């Protein structure tokens, strides 16, 4: 059965402790189960109720705080479809792209879509649409697109033995 993705709507300033609290790091609880604690403090129903492909929609400064790659890794293990935010914190954005999690910037999308709303997402063209709205998002910078497509920066590095940015300039 094809499951229609839904929106999980978050506020501004969702930090890495919100995404995965430090006490539930794989280092503490084990590699197999840590993803079940995603948003444990903020939205305890997330890990059990989300479906693969669901879209996280947030305000500004998504992912501020820690460099912990296991926070986005938890989202990857849960097969989050994409993260769309008004802006991203630096280290976390790089971690998202490195892990091959589609992350798009859009100021407008936040006001157009509601929590729980069903949507469809065209990854290739970065277009998010619901019954009422359709919006094209700012694409991932071109030099990072191939690592996203290959699944992770490590796959890119293994394939080319160079960093994504070495293609430019």
């Amino acid at each position: 059965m094809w499951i229609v993705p839904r929106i999980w709507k978050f506020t501004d300033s969702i930090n890495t402790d919100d995404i995965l609290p430090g006490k539930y790091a794989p280092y503490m609880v084990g590699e197999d189960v840590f993803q079940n604690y995603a948003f444990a403090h903020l939205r305890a129903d997330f890990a059990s109720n989300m479906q693969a492909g669901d879209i996280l929609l947030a305000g500004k400064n998504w992912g501020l705080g820690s460099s912990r790659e296991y926070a986005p890794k938890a989202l990857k293990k849960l097969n989050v479809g994409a993260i769309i935010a008004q802006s991203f914190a630096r280290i976390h954005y790089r971690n998202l792209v490195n892990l091959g999690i589609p992350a798009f910037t859009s100021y407008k999308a936040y006001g157009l879509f509601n929590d729980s709303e069903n949507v469809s997402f065209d990854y290739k063209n970065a277009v998010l649409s619901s019954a009422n709205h359709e919006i094209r998002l700012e694409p991932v910078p071109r030099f990072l697109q191939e690592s996203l497509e290959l699944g992770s920066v490590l796959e890119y590095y293994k394939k080319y033995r160079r960093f994504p940015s070495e293609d430019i300039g």
Partner: protein
Amino acid sequence: MNTALTLAEQILSYKAAKTVLADEIVVVEVDQVMIVDSIAPDVIRIINEDLGGEIKFPEKISIVIDHVSPASNIEVAKAQKQAREFAQKHAIKLFDVGRGICHQLLIEEKRAKPGEIILGSDSHSTTYGAVSAFGTGMGASDIAMAASSGKTWLKVPKTVKVNFLGKKKKNVYAKDIALEMIRQLTADGATYASIEYHGLEDFSLSERMTMANLAVEAGAKVGLIPVSGLLLNDYNVPDWLFVDKDANYFKEIEIDISKIESVVAAPSFVDNVQTVKSIQNKKVDQVFVGSCTNGRLDDLHIVADILKNKKVAEGTRLLVIPASSKVLEEAVADGTFASLLASGAIFATPGCGPCMGRHMGILAPDEVCVSTTNRNFIGRMGSAQSEVFLASPATAAYTALRGFISGGENA
């Protein structure tokens, strides 16, 4: 005529062997890769499984067991054992349990020097900017690739210049000044940018570490303080690294230090900065003095002086964790340790302690902690219903004495 460059542009231009400006992307060799215990399992797995087990410059790597130190459960103990074995196999410098916090150790051991690039698997790697090193935090994949290849890619950050003027009032410390800076910039006011700190010539190395440490709480990639004052006795500054007045800053702010009072960052954002005076009758269950932000000898001195011949308030716990074994040894040697014990402080093993809520002082629901650390997010130090107020060591000490949030102004 040479182009005028910011400190960040100078460091990345030197490493790239060509002039690079903000927003350009460079691939550079790094001088040091720092790996902490909690990230080591991922880094080791990536190196072994994806990068052929190759480590190009083991002498440029440090592994530090500080985030849960000593181990709190079997999972952690296994990961630490693996990190030790990996360090030994590759002849990598290991700072084991009890040696202290990564950022403190790299600066104490001069593994971070002016003009160098230091990548850390910890967001507070901006601390190395205290000695004009380009310190920045990255996740496990980037850290593993850098540890293996000796290189990384970086976008040259644009720079926010912060000019500090005036002298501190009594009871005001570097922590108050850094928090005021974050209040003004906001938690994303320096996203992707370098913060360049000017006017801190009188600041000690420890104070500079507090200032640079908190740069990331304004979203910054790096927080660079020009080497000046007494630091010139201890550090050689390369001749290409200097403050160029004509450099291109994308934002410039001025902060009058003499107007700053004791402040706290109230729950649950670091830029939610309020004066201590404005917070009335807030009962505190735990006071924590420690961390890479404020766990150094001068911080312990400030607390011991305020508590001298006095006792911590009944019903309040004062937990002190020195930032390194060296800080602990010095505090023992100069009587600070005994003085704090006599006042009722509890000590624990040098390391990160309860800062990120894993061990050594977890908070119960409804408990309140005044902490000299750097983050006060929901559930950061334990229960999601607990509260963390970030403060200077002095505010922590006055609070411990009264059992309520208090600064020197209340004394």
